[in-house]
């Protein structure tokens, strides 16, 4: 999970400690719709996983990302 956290920190250019479960699309101004797609693309490439379109649309905060990434690595 640390890896996902690192990617999010890198993509938004913020310190690791700021990447918390409630880091949210709604309130964090750098999380624009374009950045959202780029973030997904980075996560996919770096972690070697694939999100479904539905999952991408469902993500509201970092907690959701964690949960989706976890569900994929369990498989």
């Amino acid at each position, binding site marked *: 999970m640390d890896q996902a956290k690192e990617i999010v920190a890198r*993509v938004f250019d913020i310190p690791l400690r700021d990447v918390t479960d409630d880091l949210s699309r709604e309130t964090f101004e750098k999380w624009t719709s374009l*950045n959202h*797609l*780029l*973030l997904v*693309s980075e996560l996919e490439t770096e972690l070697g996983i694939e999100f*479904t*379109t539905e999952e*991408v*649309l469902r993500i509201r905060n970092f907690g959701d990302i964690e949960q989706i990434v976890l569900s994929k690595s369990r498989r």
Partner: protein
Amino acid sequence: MEDIQKTISRAEVKGLMDYIKLAGVVDRELALAKTPAANRIRIAVLSSFNLSGIREVLLVECVKEGIYPEIYVGEYNQYNQEILDANSGLYDFSPDLLILVTDTRTVAGESFFRPYSLSDVERKEWVKTVTSDLVGLVRKAKEGMKGRVLIHNFEVPTQSTLGILENRQEYGYVKAIQDLNSALAEIFRTDPRVFVLDYELFASKVGKDRIIDYKMYYLGDIRINPQVMPQLCLEYMRYVRPLLSRSKKCLVLDLDNVLWGGVVGEDGVEGISLGPTPEGRPFMELQKLVLSLYERGVILAVNSANNLEDVLEVFRKHPHMVLKEDNFAAMKINWENKVTNMREIAEELELGVDSFVFLDDSEVNRDMMRSELPEVLTVDLPRDPALYPKTLMNLDAFDTLRLTNEDLRRGEMYAEQRKRQEYRKTVSDIGEYLRSLGTVVTIEKANRFSIPRIAQLSQKTNQFNTTTRRYLEDDVSRMAASDTYDVFSVTVNDKFGDSGLTGVAIVEKSPDRWRVDSFLLSCRVLGRKVEDTVLAHIVGLAKKEGAKVLVGEFIPTKKNVPASGFYQSHGFSQVGKRDGVEVWERSLESAYEVPQYVKLVVR
């Protein structure tokens, strides 16, 4: 400014996100810095779908090469309006290069999914409509702006609802897209202001399954995979570089383990790998590719640590050598440091090192070249020679926007120049040398065939150029057609070969005074009395038409020192200087003779 270029070249750039971050840094720096005008370019991008990120990638790729662009990106899918509305942001921005990005989905619409809802006849009509719409749009853009236009052609689909029967159709969907692409290529083939980026070929190279990420497409109408965007921008760079005269001209080659396998000094001519064997074939094929570059006008040179005799033996005796001594314009084969050699090659060929590409297998040599002469493009040759040919094939540094006859023959002409200079060393008397060359100077008024080359010379001649006024093809055509101007082309040849169209003189004629607006010669014909011959011709003509005074202008620049003494040493006296323009005059009472040993032909 160089600092930011270095920072960016060193930065590890993986995904689009890294580009966006770097672009932020560049934007801040550029807002404060003053960039040299010669390195600036204005690029506009219009697209029919979401191309977010294009500005950032293009910006970073430009700055990496020391180019400082201003980039305008049109609103999402507003390309039609931007082009059709004369008051749009596009025209206000006035780009040097407009990149117009549309794709197969855009033009096909419903047919993209249901191609066979149209009949073959309707499909033919459709191709015509799409072509004429796009051509109309491009024409409109050309009218509204001064710069060039780059359009994408269309990706040919890899699948069809007809399946394996697709190519049994008389005029199928695949054929229609291919036809559309050929039509565009043909329409713009000779247009100096419009270029068609072969997106179909690009998509094949990248892989059509990879070029679109369907999730991104459905989520954001992103039709080019963000991971591929950097590669696409590198395709755009192939047009940006020549627009700023950044094309490379000369390929400088190491020999051992580059043109052949092994070290000739140790392994001997018989021991090196070159020829139809697994170890020898990559080298042989690399040589063929190098020869092909020579045939498209790239100048070749050797920079090698070796004994000259060993190397000459390979060139003369090895049965599988493809390249010959005659193909090279300069050969530095010695035990000098390669950087010193490189500087000497530049001097000998009268080219800047920034027009050089360097191919060497040794990492030490490459690092040294990069740190001492960063302007040289030093290629990272892979360790395995099997990958050499591919590396050379992918090298896009020699791209130019136009290939004149002179360009095609340039490699040859520089190689001839080497022989001329070697010969010069064997003759002690300059008069004797000039006489034995048998120089013929041909002067001709500009015509439809010579105008592209005349404009090209006007754009890029820096040294012997009295005013460095830069004219485009349109400008030259206008002056050539006018009664008040004469545009002359100058062609030179001698016993060593044909130097081609290498000089231009543009003269403005009024009844009493003729003014030499531009006079320029390629430096490789200097020292052969060509400039005197051209002057003699102009003086003769002006006298004949009754003019009294010939006016010459000189605008000093950093690079045109070779032309600085020209008017003074040819009987002109300076009468004034205004806005940086020196004005020189010469009375036309006395004639000026064509120099001895030069034959003047007027066509």
